[in-house]
């Protein structure tokens, strides 16, 4: 075990874990940030996505000791009690069915819009291609991203 300091959603936390522990378990079990979810542990589905240094990062395959920059989780998107435009768009479009994947969808879309505030339909499809949903809410997710893009652009 070793002490590792993580900066998450604006606050610093020191945890005592095996350095190779995937970031996902530290966020969920030690820091109580359960927005990121376990879906595969293989980096294939996106459920565990957090944003590190502007990049949508799969925390289930990211060793905790390798994370040097600030981490943003789903819980950290709202600012001053106001939902991020993506979260609001998700409510306006009534996107989720079960909702279990939506952390990954929203965080991946956040990184996408931060990079490209006015994505084309093709860029949305491509940018979201590796983020899975088994309730197949893709059609509404894409609509919500377009709706949010109008707000952030």
């Amino acid at each position, binding site marked *: 075990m070793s002490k590792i300091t993580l900066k998450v959603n604006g606050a610093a936390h020191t945890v005592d874990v095996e350095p190779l522990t995937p970031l996902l378990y530290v966020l969920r079990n030690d820091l109580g940030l359960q927005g990121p979810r376990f879906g595969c542990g293989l980096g294939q589905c996106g*459920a565990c996505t957090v944003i590190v240094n502007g990049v949508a990062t799969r925390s289930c395959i990211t060793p905790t000791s390798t994370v040097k920059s600030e981490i943003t989780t789903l819980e950290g998107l709202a600012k001053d009690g106001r939902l991020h435009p993506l979260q609001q768009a998700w*409510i306006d479009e009534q996107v989720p069915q079960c909702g279990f994947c939506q952390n990954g969808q929203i965080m991946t879309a956040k990184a996408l819009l931060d990079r490209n505030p006015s994505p084309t339909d093709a860029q949305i499809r491509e940018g979201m291609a590796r983020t899975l949903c088994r309730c197949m809410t893709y059609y509404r997710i*894409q609509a919500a991203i377009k709706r949010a893009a109008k707000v952030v652009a």
Partner: protein
Amino acid sequence: MTAFTNIPKYIEDLLEKQTATPSRRDFLKTSGLLVVSVSASAIARPLAAAPQSAGPYPDPDFRQLDSWIVIHEDNTATFYVGKTDCGQGTGTAFRQMMSDELDIAYDKTTCIMGSTDITVDQGGSGGSDAIQTDGWPMRRVAAEARRVLLEMASTRFGVPVDQLAVSAGVITVKSDPSKRVTYGQLIGGKRFNVALTGTNVDATTGVAKVKPVQEFKIVGQSPQRYDIPAKVDGSLKWAADVKLPGMVHARNVKPPVAGAKLIGIDESSVKSMPGFIKVVSKGNYVAVVCEREEQAINASRQLKVNWEKPATASFPSSEDLFKYMRSATPTSSSNPNVVGNPDQAFAGAATVIDAEYDVPFQGHTAFGPAHATADPSNNQMTIYSNDMKSYGMRTGVATFLGMPRDKVRVVWMEGPQGYGRTAADDAGCEAAYLAKEIGRPVRVQWTRNEETAWDTKGPAFTFKLRGGLDASGNLVAFDYNAQSADYNHLGYNEPDTVLIAQLMGSRRARPAAGSAATPSEMYAIPNRRMATQVVSLPLVWETPLRTGNLRDPNGPQSTFASESFVDELAAAAKADPLAFRLKLLTASTSDDTGFKRARSIAVVKAVAEAYGWDNRPSPKPRGTGNILTGRGLAYSFRNQTVVAQIADVEVNRRTGHVWVKRLVCAHDCGLIINPEALRRTIEGGMLHSLSRALHEEVQFDTEKVTSVDWISYPSLTHTDTPEKIDIVLVNGDPNPNRPDLPHYGAGETVCKPLIAAVANAIFDATGVRLRRIPFRDGRVLAALKAAAV
């Protein structure tokens, strides 16, 4: 205090506290339950108990009004229903129906669902019956509560009930509206003490009659789903998120090949690992328990276990599956359903067509693998679970552990994608067993590979179809034969079929027979024969090819075959596929009590109109570019819900890639509770079947499943998504304004015709008939090349 003990103790305590302290907010703060929000419109169900609340946990009595509805002093209401939600927002719909019957504003209500000690047993979810079946007792008990409140007001004001008006939880005297009283003032925080009747929970009723449909104000509107905000801001605590004091983590170690026998465990391989607590093993069931989650993962990977492979092959490989199924002796056969004289009709037919269709095993592959947390404190057992049939899990766990039922409860919490997988949940029994062994709360989580390999599967099917046309192109004879690999189909949380029980060697003497489906359509075909058989694979128990209910069980398979074949017959008759179907639907005027024929005709016409269908036979003249386009229609029903769909496809003749560019769906489920929530349910259901059409196939060699993750078991992605989905909500009832218009189920019917609609569109585009799913690029390309497209 009144001596009722048969309403949920939770509600009893709630009402006592409310009486003692005026503020509901104070109660929720001090109740020992963590509650996200105290606002009436939020979800106010207990999310995670601190120490386990003292049992026992008797069954809440559905014949007590107080078990269903609590009116609070602030004139809000909480509805307690025995359902769970798989993500379609049924809780919002329940609130709409019950608010309307009770005459209270929707935003002054909350709904609590599916926890066995708090809510009456309505079976959890399954079969798209939430609105269709369970909505009725909900409506009736809410109507009864309204009746009782009106009588109380009548006594208070000394005027007959018919001289009272009620709106949004406020009762006024019609002749003197200054005389008013709220529901909260009449009964807030107190019991109704009203007994209900009914031989079973579905029949629960009071004296009051439900409202005519025309009086509904909230039903038919689309309030936003109350569960969604917490799902997008990260605040919802799911079953996967439960944390309890002293909780430890477990991971299973599955046999490396199906049917393997445990020879020995080398515990020293993990004993010195950090956080290691115990290896738990019985029969062929093995799990490792550690203090921390990642420690359990590491230990389960490192544990050295000796397994003995079975002497013979457990199943044919997936490449040989259909050949095996066709030559296997059925374990059961249905009595053929015969209309007219098919043999004679075939003998006299001008054209006879034969075709064989195949559907592989397909998985649930839930987005989040199985999980549950069990707390064994106080010699009782609480399981925190996303099991869609939480009540069944409670009984299953009690039997499995040999505990009295009233010592076991299941707290239902949201989870990933039910769709049948959590009806045959495995993790609940595992967590409870391990918690009992360890004596501490245990959280079990399956791995991705474990879930994809070992979850319950939708059965593989083979079909033999024959159709006969007369000289005018009329379908005069139809022979349908379906065979499914569905032997030992799993039940719901049964203690003798759940996987841990199988692995421990505890199993029922007689496996379930399983089933294969016949088509669901209203075609008037004068001569037809429909027969089904079930076959078994060599390995019956402890197999990863265990079958269970997968969203619309057997429907997508049988409708893929039957509705594709109807298209083949239309093509052989050189008829437009829509006109061909309408002719079959209108060839008879006999109808059922739900007017399914009339509604089928209405739905098929509606989808054609919404699409802009022009009359021509398939296939269309073949295009010349790399992208060939086509359209395909299919129709079906499930119970009383009727659906027709049209798919527009693009087929890339160089790569074999299929993109469904547009989907149109006409949908009739009777009275609609929440149109916007329904639309999203329809979209998701259609795309679920699209995933099965294009991608999904369980692959295996003769000893194990080899499609074990999202690479080897691909699923629909953002790039596959249609660019346009049009949904028409149809009310095809011949008397659409009747006051008793029923509300039928949604959520599964749309899964039925979709695969056939895509197959028919591919045929329209290319002239090539694909009779086996999934339509992956390689398979489509091979078929195009074989046909020189």
